[in-house]
């Protein structure tokens, strides 16, 4: 026997435990050790989505159209996959702007428009009231049914219970008191309620366990598992169709999936738990799969319980909405029935608490405060402390919303099943979808567009869903539905403009979304944005790019003291002091002190703090009253933009200049290195030349002095000395000529007589001239010349100079008597190659890289003075390179050396072009 007292006691103990959890959660939050900073708790708190609708109503809906209850959970599952993209962006925006409700969000996006915030609040309140009525209906019905235990009877319908005897009224008042205690014990600048979230998470576990317990009892205790239950149901005419995808489920399937996708984002309570109460946006990741998993679990037994209920109560006396409770009762399971009742109470209280807190925040911040603050007569802005007023308003709103819910329950609650009531609310909040989603992705959306779209969508919702609900309950003439207002058939609310054959929700969604989206886009595109709208649009759409919140576009003057006092009036002196001190410390500014400049950033900071307490529209009004704000004219905005683009341009130019400068510096440095090198070379050259000149000069002078000082010198001695002097003079002349040669070639002043030359002829002539000298020294001269060679472009005299130099070198190093010098001329691809090979001592490998250097001489110059100046090879190589050829040496020590050079063939007869002189 369950007495009313037992049920009430259990309920109060349960609510008391929840309150204790909430109290503990708040204490921990105040101590800075949050118990809800956990993705699992976040996911469980999102399950506030599952209300009495899910707990009792799904079964009622399944009894009519089978799987038709499922789209309400499949839609959110699909939306979860998009959460990381959509919900995370909404969370980030709300964190940056301290947004505390969906009305605040929309108002802030469209230029902090108080009118838009108010409209959203009205839509939310009007739209949600049926939903709250649903919870009251479910709790009061389950209470009255349980009270009859062990009898299973429905509470009589349609009787006029006196107000003071109506359970639903007491439940409404009880829930109001409980919500006030939960949500408005003190004013939070952030509107976050950690304790409440913890309690909601516990409630989510309780309702899931209660549902699963009842489901397992029915499926596995009353029946012998799923197979048995479904098998028996398939035999019955009443239950068999429910297991197929019938017309009833199919008709509204797609529109319900879409509707619930919107609801999971935009229901005020979902916005509260998923966005406002979010501790860490990373928690969204786990919720993406954990929350759908929860919904899956709580729905598994819906259809089995429905079928079992229909089979157990075949006469239709028992409302299918109550099967979850009545089945355990009918089987004498009083403890299970009580547990189910507590689970249903969890589902209802969770929804009511979060929803009314969210609504009270909205009504207070976005509807009442903007109006009250504007009313100059009230002088609200001058009151020293407004925290008490804010709390009083919110408590009043909570009580009012619950009483309105009760009123709707009294007026229209009897005519509809639970789910049908809830769907009306879903359709109302779905109207927020275009303005919110458009607002965070479409920069061009305007305030006027949002207002027009919302108004039109809401009006059609009122006309096609709310008014018919009232008409069916007898509060409007039923002819209004059947033949339209004033008998105009075209305007029938359930077949607007002749659109018939659809279920009521699909019909209402098509027309309201058409009007909503159409006007939103159309008006936005045809109008222009104000400066404030443009700024807010940019900070919303690009929230991941810049997070300062757009403090930069503001100018005006304010006293930091005034701003502090204003903040203190709304959130209390101590929190205000702490907040501003934090701000000052984080920027290393002095506080408390009058030196703190109220710059754009500080004013923006105070406005954001204020927005957390009273909403962005009200905060805007307050800031405007405290700050002598100079409105930013369009010209000024233009100037700011111009300046910005100028700066960007300058910066680009500067970068380019700096790059050019770097390049020039590098070139200069290289040139400087080269100059230094040349200078060093010149010094070396001069010192070497001087040295080379002094040797013959010394010798000439020494012999001349002997001749001068000793007139009695023998004639042959005299001749010998004169011969030495003559040779040394010749050598001196040669040296000077060669030095002059080098100077000319190096400076490019040499006089080149470039003509087409027959190299074979030149080589043959030169060899003929030298043959006598070779013969005298007993060196064999071998020549290998082709019949004829193509012409090359060169200076004949210079070419002969090169050949003579190489031949005399070869002769010089060839051993007397058995020497052999080979000269060969070959035609290769594009060039002629001339080799002069001797069988002298050769050039040591380590000397080979240097033989073409100036003044390089073979052998040990300290011991033996070799003949020659050491300039010949250098000059030869310069000449060959001037002709465009190469010169190199190949040699192995002891086997002779081979000096080779090439001359490029004249490509055509006309080409006399040669490389630049060196």
């Amino acid at each position, binding site marked *: 026997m369950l007495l009313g007292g037992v049920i009430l006691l259990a309920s109060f103990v349960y609510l008391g435990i929840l309150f204790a959890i909430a109290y503990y959660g708040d204490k921990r939050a105040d101590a800075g050790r949050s118990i809800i900073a956990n*993705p699992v708790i976040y996911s469980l708190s999102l399950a506030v989505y599952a209300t009495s609708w899910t707990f009792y109503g799904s079964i009622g809906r399944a009894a009519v159209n089978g*799987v038709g209850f*499922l*789209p309400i959970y*499949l839609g959110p*599952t*699909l939306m*979860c*996959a*998009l*959460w*990381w*993209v959509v919900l995370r962006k909404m969370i980030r925006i709300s964190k940056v702007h301290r947004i505390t409700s969906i009305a605040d969000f929309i108002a802030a996006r469209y230029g902090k428009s108080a009118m838009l915030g108010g409209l959203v609040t009205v839509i939310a309140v009007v739209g949600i009231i049926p939903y709250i009525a649903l919870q009251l209906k479910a709790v009061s019905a389950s209470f009255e049914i349980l009270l009859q235990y062990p009898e299973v009877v429905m509470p009589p319908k349609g009787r006029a219970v006196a107000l003071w005897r109506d359970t639903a009224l007491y439940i409404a008042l009880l829930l109001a008191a409980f919500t006030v205690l939960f949500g408005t014990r003190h004013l939070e600048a952030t509107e976050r309620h950690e304790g409440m979230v913890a309690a909601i998470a516990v409630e989510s576990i309780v309702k899931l366990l209660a549902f699963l317990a009842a489901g397992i009892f029915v499926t596995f205790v009353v029946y012998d*598992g*799923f*197979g*048995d239950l*479904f*098998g028996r149901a*398939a035999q019955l005419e009443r239950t068999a169709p429910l*297991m*197929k*995808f019938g017309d009833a489920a*199919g008709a509204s*399937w*797609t529109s319900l*999936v879409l509707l619930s996708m919107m609801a999971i984002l935009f229901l005020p309570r979902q916005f509260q738990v998923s966005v406002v109460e979010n501790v860490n946006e*990373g*928690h969204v*990741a*786990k919720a*993406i*799969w*954990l929350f*759908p*998993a929860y919904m*899956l679990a709580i*729905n*598994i037994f819906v*259809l089995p319980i429905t079928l079992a209920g229909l089979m157990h109560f075949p006469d239709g006396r028992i409302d299918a909405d109550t099967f979850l409770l009545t089945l355990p009762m009918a089987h004498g399971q009083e403890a299970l029935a009580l547990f189910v009742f507590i689970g249903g109470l969890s589902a209802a209280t969770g929804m009511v608490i979060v929803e009314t807190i969210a609504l009270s925040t909205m009504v207070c911040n976005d509807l009442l405060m903007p109006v009250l603050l504007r009313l100059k007569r009230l002088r609200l802005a001058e009151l020293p402390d407004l925290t008490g007023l804010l709390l009083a308003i919110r408590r009043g709103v909570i009580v009012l919303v619950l009483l309105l819910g009760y009123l709707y329950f009294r007026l229209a609650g009897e005519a509809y099943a639970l789910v049908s009531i809830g769907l009306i609310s879903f359709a109302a909040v779905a109207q927020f979808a275009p303005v919110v989603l458009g607002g965070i992705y479409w920069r061009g959306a305007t305030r006027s567009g949002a207002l027009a779209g919302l108004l039109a969508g809401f009006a059609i919702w009122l006309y096609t869903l709310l008014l018919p609900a009232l008409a069916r309950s007898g509060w409007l003439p039923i002819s209004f539905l059947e033949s339209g207002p004033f008998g105009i058939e075209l305007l029938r609310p359930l077949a607007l403009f002749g659109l018939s054959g659809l279920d009521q929700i699909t019909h209402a969604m098509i027309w309201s979304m058409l009007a909503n989206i159409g006007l939103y886009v159309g008006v936005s595109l045809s109008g222009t944005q104000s400066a404030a709208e443009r700024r807010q649009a940019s900070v919303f759409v690009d929230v991941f790019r810049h997070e300062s919140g757009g403090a930069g576009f503001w100018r005006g003057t304010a006293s930091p003291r005034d701003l502090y006092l204003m903040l203190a009036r709304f959130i209390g002196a101590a929190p205000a002091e702490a907040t501003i001190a934090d701000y000052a410390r984080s920027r290393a500014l002095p506080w408390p002190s009058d030196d703190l400049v109220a710059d754009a950033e500080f004013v923006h900071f105070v406005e954001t703090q204020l927005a957390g307490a009273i909403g962005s529209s009200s905060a805007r009004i307050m800031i405007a009253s405290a700050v002598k704000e100079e409105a930013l004219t369009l010209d000024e905005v233009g100037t700011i933009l111009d300046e910005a683009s100028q700066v960007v341009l300058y910066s680009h130019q500067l970068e380019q200049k700096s790059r050019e400068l770097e390049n020039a510096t590098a070139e200069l440095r290289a040139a400087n290195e080269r100059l230094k090198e040349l200078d060093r070379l010149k010094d070396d050259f001069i010192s070497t030349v001087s040295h080379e000149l002094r040797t013959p000069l010394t010798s000439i002078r020494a012999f001349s002095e002997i001749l001068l000082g000793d007139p009695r010198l023998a004639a042959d001695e005299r001749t010998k000395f004169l011969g030495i002097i003559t040779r040394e003079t010749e050598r001196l002349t040669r040296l000077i000529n060669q030095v002059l040669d080098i100077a000319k070639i190096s400076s490019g002043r040499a006089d080149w007589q470039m003509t087409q030359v027959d190299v074979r002829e030149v080589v043959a002539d030169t060899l003929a001239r030298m043959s006598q000298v070779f013969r005298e020294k007993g060196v064999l001269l071998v020549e290998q010349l082709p019949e004829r060679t193509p012409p090359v472009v060169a200076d004949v005299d210079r070419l002969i100079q090169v050949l003579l130099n190489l031949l005399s070198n070869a002769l010089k190093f060839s051993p007397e008597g058995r020497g052999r010098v080979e000269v060969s001329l070959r035609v290769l691809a594009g060039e002629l190659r001339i080799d002069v090979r001797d069988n002298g001592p050769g050039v040591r490998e380590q000397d080979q890289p240097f033989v073409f250097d100036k003044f390089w001489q073979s052998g040990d110059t300290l011991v033996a003075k070799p003949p020659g100046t050491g300039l010949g090879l250098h000059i030869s190589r310069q000449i060959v390179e001037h002709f465009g050829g190469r010169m190199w040496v190949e040699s192995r020590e002891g086997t002779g050396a081979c000096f080779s050079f090439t001359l490029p063939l004249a490509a055509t007869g006309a080409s006399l072009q040669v490389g630049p002189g060196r």
Partner: protein
Amino acid sequence: MALRNEHPQRLVALFALGCVLFSGTLLGMFGGEATVLGVPALYAYLFGAWAVLVALMALVVELHD
């Protein structure tokens, strides 16, 4: 927990998959009397597809290393 760049794309792809799995047209195919282990095919398909979708979402999110 932060998701890398490609994860949102995978999740959006799962969203598209879900839209197909739960489309009214596809569900219309389960009108018959067929059962899976005694459970009607429609019911088994809906919850099976749902469970698979949730499992895939969990895989994408949790296996992010």
